[in-house]
């Protein structure tokens, strides 16, 4: 295994493999950023720079893409990612109370990570599970028909 070219001493060759996989192809910036974030959990500045250098693009362009889309994180996230649905169906069925409960239980605001690093609360427009409103997702698991009391129970499982 060679040294990683992400700019840090992570000794992880997976990042280099991703760059090579997309070399010379068109429209690869978003998938490369997605895969890089999968490995690292977020997109540190040196990684964005390394991607820009590798694909011969200005740093501003890559940074511009990384900050345009809600999916990309420029700061490290917590162990678990919570997304509380803010869609219309959840809104009229009390989604705000669910969000408030998550915020008060973890003492975080939307977009923040809890002090113990266990949870990050990320904004999301709609999870598309409107039939079960109000809904939240923790990592890849969807929880529906929530009440503030259920939130406490669910968070305790993590």
């Amino acid at each position, binding site marked *: 295994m060679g040294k990683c070219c992400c700019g840090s001493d992570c000794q992880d060759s997976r990042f280099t493999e991703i760059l090579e996989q997309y070399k010379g192809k068109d429209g690869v910036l*978003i998938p490369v950023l*997605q895969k890089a974030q999968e490995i690292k959990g977020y997109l540190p500045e040196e990684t964005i720079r390394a991607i820009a250098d590798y694909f011969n693009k200005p740093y501003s362009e890559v940074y511009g893409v990384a900050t345009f889309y809600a999916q990309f994180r420029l700061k490290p996230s917590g162990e678990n990612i919570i997304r509380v649905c803010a*869609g*219309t*169906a959840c809104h*009229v069925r009390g989604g705000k109370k669910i969000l408030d409960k998550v915020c008060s239980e973890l003492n975080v605001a939307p977009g923040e990570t809890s002090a113990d690093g266990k949870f990050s609360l990320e904004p999301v427009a*709609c*999870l598309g599970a409107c*039939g079960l*409103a109000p809904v939240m997702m923790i990592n890849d698991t969807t929880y529906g028909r929530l009440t503030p009391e259920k939130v406490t129970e669910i968070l305790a499982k993590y």
Partner: protein
Amino acid sequence: MQIYRGHVLICAGTGCVASGSKKVQAEMANQLEAFNLENDIKIVETGCHGFCEMGPIVIVYPEGIFYCQVKMEDVKEIVEEHLLKGRPVKRLLFRDQMTEEMVPHYRDIDFYKKQNRIVLGNCGFINPENIKEYIARDGYEALAKALTQMTPEQVIDEVKASGLRGRGGGGFPTGLKWQFARDAKGDKKYVICNADEGDPGAFMDRSVLEGDPHALIEGMAIAAYAIGSDEGYIYVRAEYPLAIKRLQIAIAQAHELGLLGKDIFGSGFNFKLNIKEGAGAFVCGEETALIASIEGRRGEPRVRPPFPANKGLWGKPSNVNNVETFANVPRIIAKGSQWYAGMGTEKSKGTKVFALTGKVKNTGLAEVTMGLTLREIIFEIGGGIIDDKKFKAVQIGGPSGGCIPEQLLDLPIDYDSLISAGAMMGSGGLVVMDEDTCMVELARFFLNFTQMESCGKCTPCREGTKIMLDILERITKGEGKEGDIELLESLAKTIKSTSLCGLGQTAPNPVLATLRYFRDEYEAHIKEKRCPAGVCTALASYSILEDKCIGCTACARVCPVNAISGEVKKPHKIDPAKCIKCGACAQACKFNAIVKK
């Protein structure tokens, strides 16, 4: 091939999985084995049945018995009683909410009775991860027909004659759009599917992707043949991991059978399909922004013309349609345009899938023939309002649409009738609201959404939506001023006429529609500092009804700011100057003595 005497269909759509259908499925496999039935009864993992409220849903065939809200503990009883002894488990059957009667059969349930499931015809019946089940229900027959018996022009003429219009919101005639892409000059053309279902409150595309992915693939292949393209992209939201997984499986299986790839059906037609994962930006539902995103750039829209039909992906002619539109195509080609055009209203043909949500008893996906009334959808399919409260309005078309009040409930739904009522079809989200919904707050909610999702490229949308949001926030906080309504109207007009793309052009719609039908609520907020629905906290006031209060002191003990005073066993009082309107007292009171106004 092994023959089974019965099939157990278990929904594996996102809704039912969230309600625990995976555990039910695992237990079903265990129990079938325990009763030695594993060679008699087959488990089929299906896509969404649309009745998410009642999930996890289990249907037993050949009888078609419909079990709802099945828990792991119920499985043994279903296997032992029903599958072994032939006696359906009554307590798990669906109960009609009006008559309280049990409805054992799928087709007799009110939720399904009025529906006309064409696009959703396979969802919930086939295993979406097995292409053979799609083929067994005449899948890929339409593609074979198009490639071997029809010219591209004939395909386009057939789609034109069917009257199919874009299901993503705009309602542009699909056949005409294909014609433009076919007529455009270019050596390379692309077919693109917009599966970036971003409207909050809509999830029909998700169900098609998860429940019947081959219908989309077949529709796209037919479109590619018609316009002269050999490559397609499906742009899917990253928030839909299951949809992405099922699409990947479906594409791989279609390749294996030669239904994608080179020389399909020996016709010389080649078609390659790629999946592009979105990265979370609502504006990417706009076609030029979506194309920019596929190209790996910021998803910002650009001025049209040139339209994508002439200059699209990588500058080549491209045709963009939404999932539901493509999923209609195989049915039109297979059964003919006459059949399709025979359904619906004069200018809106076929069916539309609506996502019925909010304060309605039966939430889920309902596919109905165009021209059905809102009353039929909400009160017959949807079963009416939760807790039998009073219906107030239904929001249709998401953040680009508007609300329809009670007096227009008998409006037959089609593209044009909705526009004239100040709403729009949009993607088909129907969010039902009862008397407890504040329409000003709802408008604020939508503006907050569009303002956050505005990409910032053009000024009217970026600045205008922000100013409208500021005004609405002030009004809901009780700081509204004379002239605010007029200012909102004038801003709305400017934003609508000068924004670059559909996001900005439709962003003011929720405000205009609520102003049109519920102007008095705005006025109550501004002039009387009162929220008629009692939703806006800043305008609410709590008081204690003397005749109901027994002086138990429960309210005073929970009040975080000590705003409640009174002697034990005597009526208490709330000091409005201290009250922060948190509502804790009303929740603590066991005698309904505390009212919010």
